[in-house]
């Protein structure tokens, strides 16, 4: 099978999993879900790492390094701020 087709299989099936897993989220969790999902979209960091690897600072490495920078903000900031919000929800008086 064409690798593109395999990729499309994965995309479609994962989308269905996403719809199934996420429906019926209570409104209380809408914001944390969004910021948590946003942190997950920082997975692009995996691709960014692979493009920022060589010794000579060529333009592709600089672009890759910038991608690593933005993706890391997304990942670290996203998960931390989600945790901060969820900690508030769990607080009991």
């Amino acid at each position, binding site marked *: 099978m064409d690798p593109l087709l395999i990729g499309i299989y994965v995309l479609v099936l994962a989308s269905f999993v*996403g719809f199934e897993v996420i429906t019926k989220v*209570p409104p209380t969790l809408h914001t944390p*879900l*969004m910021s948590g999902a*946003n942190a997950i979209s*920082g997975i692009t960091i995996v691709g960014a790492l692979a493009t920022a690897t060589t010794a000579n600072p060529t333009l592709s490495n600089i672009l890759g390094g910038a991608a690593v920078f*933005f993706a890391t903000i997304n990942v670290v*900031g996203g998960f931390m701020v989600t945790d901060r919000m969820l900690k*508030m929800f769990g607080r009991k008086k």
Partner: protein
Amino acid sequence: MSWLADNFSALLYLISAVMFIFGLKRLGRVRTARGGNQVAASAMLLAIVATLLDLEIVDYRWIVGGMVLGGLVGAVAATKVAMTAMPEMVAIFNGFGGAASVLVALAVVWQEVIEREVVGAPLEVLGGTAAVTIGLSILIGAVTLSGSLIAYLKLQGKLKRGQPIMLPGRHLINLALGLGALVFAAQFVGASAAGEAQTSTLSLAGLSLALGILLVIPIGGADMPVVVSLLNSYSGMAASATGFVLGNNLLIISGALVGASGLILTQIMCVAMNRSLLNVLVGGFGETDSGGGGGADEYTSVKSCGAEEAAMMLETAESCIIVPGYGLAVAQAQHIVREMADLLIGRGTKVTYAIHPVAGRMPGHMNVLLAEADVPYEQLVEMDAINPEFKTTDVVIVLGANDVVNPAAIDDKASPIYGMPILNAHEARSVFVVKRSLSPGYAGIKNGLFELDNTTMIFGDAKKVIQAVANELKELS
């Protein structure tokens, strides 16, 4: 054993993908949400470690630099941001996700095509899948980036105070930009020289950035919950597109999960406003005068009072529902509201909060604000659950909300918000509306609630008014 060694990182990616799914599932329930977020964060760490193990690296400088700086910026932003600024924070982070996708796609183009000065079409050098999806990755990533930056500025009130900006002929301009982007994407695929690949990808990125700006500027501030959810979905789709470029299934899966969750939230927000996604995206809502303008002159029989009278009413009330809106966030009144609610609860009054799904500037905005003020989430009640309660409620306090309590949505077929689900605040025995003035809400229409016999306006800043009410209550006790 060499099979295991060859596929080791791919196996770790599989574990990581499964952990993302479990994490997201747990994020959907209040009890397990915090754990779910931690599972997702661990999945990310695993994916990063797996990638680093797999790289044949000579030099870590760019990686370490990018990660240390990015981690610092992210950690500081996440710790310092005020809960009232959470919509801006989510918006700008969406943009960073898009930026990463564009940059990775461009880095691949430079690394594989331009810096090697290869002769021949990128189609042959990169393979068909990568060549086509690089264009897609740049397009979606750049639209997400510039669209999110505009949303961020609008949420900060910096861009025309969040009002829609309507360019003449904007649909034609958007169409031209979109078509132009596709032409450059096609030109890249068929490029025969490195120089052509360079100009086509950069032009594609430029047009996509412009498209992102133009798509978001006509959309008004109160429609931002839809826009932020949609951009969230785009940031996932951009990650998926990058996954196709790199042939990495983990990116495709994670991106698809985020894309799906963003679409679900977008859908929930649209239903809560009784509007189609297209209607929101076309923009300019509230700019037309179809609803008859609004403003102080429109109102004939409005009563108003001060905090003292409201406090006296509350003193004898057995039940009270608070309806928070964006005005509560602007006035930063969440802490004083909780203080007032605690005083009432101390006197035996039943206090609940009625949460409209689109109150505020992002999905769940009110919940986050009230949670910051330590309001137990059991006191926050969703629209469908609380609507039957209004009839038997003594006092309703509307705090900085307007369109979501406008009875025109139920009984005025000519109203632009007709059919939108609202909170039935008008059914309560008495209603206090805390508002700065009689200026119309986002929909730009008059609110019949303000003229009802059982409604009394309290003009002023939400924080100051509630502070005064709380002081009165203290004196009474």
